């Protein structure tokens, strides 16, 4: 097992890691705001909106992400009549599944964050004359995000590992290149390298969220 070999197989794996990272960022950047929209819908006084959001969250949390991904990649195109217009690029379809799935989880996390806020915060805001918008943006949301931070951190680490599901729809990413190399070269080394790369990514995330938690400790 030479150093040369490790360098040689690491190169495609790092390229695969780019897809992993791209999916990660698309999913996290889109699903956090979308999840927050669902949180607001769930709490909305307009009952059909709340009902819709609850159903959405129930479905996307209650079924496997893998199923959702296969559904968007291979399920939609076989629908009668409209199917032919729903042939998405597999990476795009996978992104869609990830965003919709994670939005459901983030919606629940933010809902929990809102529930954790004492009603005295709303009352103090009202008595001080703050309007609803000011109360939400200046008082409630900052506290909600602070409460939600550890859970968001957890979820984002899970997301890094979930990107390996791309393997199932044959979008080449980190794990795909590792597995190819294992089969081709009859060595277990690529799996270790893949593991190390995943660990590095989750380490960076862990440090990042630790920093955020310290930064917003309010002490």
């Amino acid at each position, binding site marked *: 097992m030479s150093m040369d070999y490790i360098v040689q197989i690491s190169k495609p794996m790092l390229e695969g890691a780019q897809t992993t990272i791209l999916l990660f960022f698309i999913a996290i950047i889109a699903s956090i705001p979308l999840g927050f929209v669902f949180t607001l819908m769930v709490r909305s006084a307009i009952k059909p909106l709340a009902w819709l959001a609850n159903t959405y969250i129930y479905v996307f949390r209650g079924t496997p992400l893998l199923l959702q991904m296969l559904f968007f990649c291979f399920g939609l195109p076989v629908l009668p009549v409209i199917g032919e217009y729903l042939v998405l690029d597999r990476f795009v379809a996978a992104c869609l599944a990830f965003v919709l799935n994670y939005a459901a989880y983030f919606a629940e996390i933010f809902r929990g964050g809102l529930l954790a806020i*004492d009603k*005295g*915060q709303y*009352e*103090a805001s*009202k*008595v*001080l*004359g*703050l309007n609803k918008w*000011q109360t939400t943006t*200046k*008082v409630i949301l*900052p*506290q909600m995000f*602070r409460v939600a931070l550890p859970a968001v951190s957890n979820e984002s680490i899970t997301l890094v590992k979930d990107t390996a599901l791309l393997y199932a729809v044959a979008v080449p990413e980190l794990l795909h290149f590792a597995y190819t190399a294992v089969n081709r070269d009859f060595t277990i080394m690529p799996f270790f390298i893949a593991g190390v790369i995943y660990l590095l990514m989750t380490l960076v995330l862990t440090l990042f969220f630790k920093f955020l938690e310290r930064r*917003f400790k*309010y*002490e």
Partner: protein
Amino acid sequence: MAIIEVSHMKKSFGHLDVLKDVSFEIQKNEVIAVIGPSGSGKSTMLRSLVHLEEINGGSIKVQDQYLVKDGVYSNHSQIKAITSRMGMVFQHFNLFPHLTVQENLGLAPKHVKKLTKEEVRSNSAVLLQKVGLSEKAEVYPGNLSGGQKQRVAIARALMMNPDIMLFDEPTSALDPELTGEVLAVIKQLAEEHMTMVIVTHEMSFAKEVADRIIFMDNGQVMESGSPDQLFHQPKMDRTREFLNRAMR
């Protein structure tokens, strides 16, 4: 002239009648202490004055403007204008934990009164000095003692220049050794003739600071009078019973 007039105020939560025909007046510059057993409706009464609760009947008039007249509320902007004349201090402080003391004081003046940074800064410096917490301006509430938190809450309410201050058991959540520093601040406000309504369990404080005591029981104002009269010659048996138990 009465600054607050409450007449025939009624409030129920479902089938529970919490306020049954409550009427009283508060004069400008008067300090009122409200006493009574827990569950008698003191908090609900106070919260109704600042529209944290909606009453089901009766009238509330503040500085000659009706907040609610015969059970019908004024419009949104009138309600806002009327309640903005009152500051409220809660039992559990309700400070904003994600903001420093300075920011807690400045939030509403900045966004509601649209004061400039400099105005906010100089006003809060004056009030922090007044409650003895000048050196805590940059500290988060999580690092303050209960007594300090409540003093910040009082300063935060005063930042809006209220004509009337309402206190709902301001010392009930505090360790006994910390009540004194909060009561001292309230006493100072009384000396400055701030109009105040103070719900309290501190009988000796009520006696000392209040011009008039209102005794509430079972959703009604049972009796009101000067501290001397109410504590030494209560008219109602119910008042005497309560005082006997409270003073023991």
